[in-house]
């Protein structure tokens, strides 16, 4: 499916929809799975420090114009999800500046904020309200979301009872139904079975007509090649390349010194 063809075109002189300017994100975190006061005291007694600094992004800059669909590729831990979170405003930069024009709908790491004890409908409403929609808008949309996700009456059942396919379909459905100007999708295309994938692709093509930009993080290089007209390759927090998907994929696979086929097996 060629999504890029149906996309909007930028008007001349229009500022970029997303502008990432020399952004670095550094954070301190602990090695401990569950940090406790007890372990902090024990550590203090031994004179140890458990905090270590993660440089997730280092001086990343790029602009994205209206109508672009940008694929983000890179190895595990390259900083792809951190970049998405920075664009979504979840992780503010440690230095630099991110400018985003429009409403963002993020589908990050599958699941918009699903609390497993609540029903699907409650989760949809909560997610919509958290992203700044009004109650009326969200309630009206909940039906559409359920219908698209094909989960029927399960919408009023706690999410913990869902199969993983239902869960992913709902997550995808939520983020595409929140009228996003900018859509962030993190590895979502593995959602659902073959028929849902076709439907999801069609929906994304439709969205690209109204949306201003789309970001897609994926390990499936084929998906990036098919759906995107622009690509970013990130490695260890640095932007290695910002070019066409073909050029980025070529450079990336060469860098990895493995054939592209090894990566495309998982894709349909």
């Amino acid at each position, binding site marked *: 499916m060629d999504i890029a063809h149906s996309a909007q075109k930028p008007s001349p002189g229009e500022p970029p929809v997303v502008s990432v300017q020399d952004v670095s994100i550094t954070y301190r975190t602990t090695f401990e799975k569950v*940090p406790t*006061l007890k372990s902090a005291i024990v550590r203090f007694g031994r004179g140890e420090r458990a905090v270590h600094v993660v440089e997730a992004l280092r001086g990343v800059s790029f602009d994205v114009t209206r109508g672009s669909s940008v694929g983000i590729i890179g190895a595990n831990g390259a900083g792809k999800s951190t970049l998405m979170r920075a664009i979504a*405003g*979840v992780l503010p*930069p*440690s230095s630099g500046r991110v400018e985003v024009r429009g409403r963002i709908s993020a589908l990050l790491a599958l699941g918009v904020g699903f609390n497993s004890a609540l029903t699907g409908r409650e989760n949809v409403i909560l997610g919509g309200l958290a992203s700044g929609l009004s109650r009326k808008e969200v309630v009206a949309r909940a039906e559409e979301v359920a219908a698209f996700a094909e989960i029927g009456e399960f919408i009023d059942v706690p999410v913990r009872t869902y199969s993983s396919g239902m869960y992913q379909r709902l997550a995808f459905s939520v983020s595409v139904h929140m009228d996003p100007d900018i859509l962030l999708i993190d590895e979502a295309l593995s959602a659902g079975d073959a028929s849902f994938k076709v439907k999801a692709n069609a929906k994304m093509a439709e969205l690209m007509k109204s949306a201003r930009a789309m970001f897609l993080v994926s390990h499936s290089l084929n998906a990036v090649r098919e759906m995107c007209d622009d690509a970013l390759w990130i490695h260890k927090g640095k932007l290695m390349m910002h070019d066409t998907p073909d050029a980025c994929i070529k450079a990336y696979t060469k860098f990895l010194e493995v054939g592209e086929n090894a990566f495309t097996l998982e894709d349909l």
Partner: protein
Amino acid sequence: MARLATDTADEVHVYEPHRAGIPPLVPYFRGLWTRREFAAEFSKSGIRAANTQTVFGQLWLVLNPLLLALVYYFLIAVLRGGDSGGLPRLANLTGGLFLFTFVSGSMSSGASSVTGGGRLIMNMNFPRLLMPFAAVRTAWFRFLPTLPVYVLLHLLSGAGWSWTMLLSVVFLGYAVIFAMGIAALLATLQVYFRDTSSFLPYFSRIWLYVSPILWAVHDTAGQFGTLMAVNRIVNPLYSIVGGWVELSLNGVMPSPTTWVMGAVWAVVMFVVGSLLFMSRERDFTVRL
């Protein structure tokens, strides 16, 4: 977290580092206000999930503090050698205990509000203070059904009615503001020290004993000397719960110190708790 500037037609979000850790306050609180429906819905669905909307769920909200009040009532009776103080004492006890349960409930659910927020925190950009505030809202709606019981006990104890009693609403307000602050404070601590919520029950038990709940403010006149004078100042609930019980039960106007200390504690706790929370908020995403 996000600085929001309205362009001619677009919403433009600019994300920049904030050096001192505290985000620009005016847009932050504007964002908080525009998403208040989220906090309400978050708390409502939490209450639904906990089955408190069923008859027995509601009943339990009333029964639990009431039974606790009865336990303490008998404890006092034993300690005093048979003189339990009758129904007025029980009414005094329940009035204080119900409000204390609101505060301690805000503390415990506030503490787990962020760590329990999981995916919502990881994936969505919204002012995180909504989470502990939603926890306080939940505690408040668990407190409301206990009010009629308090009124009933008031009637049974034969205490009078007066217009000054209406002023007790001010102390309820103090309690709410104080609870919001302490919920934010504990939510922050819980992110860094996950055993905070394990210490809480001990902490709140001690707090219960040093606050004027099992004993009345007027009981202690002239007793315990300096210790009580210190308690009056450093224990926020001395003024907040004490003022509430004095007004709502006895219609006695609390001393100016009680009014001032209650207000000061409510404001201080709110400011300290929410500023600490906001300054650490950025860290939450990577610490969960």
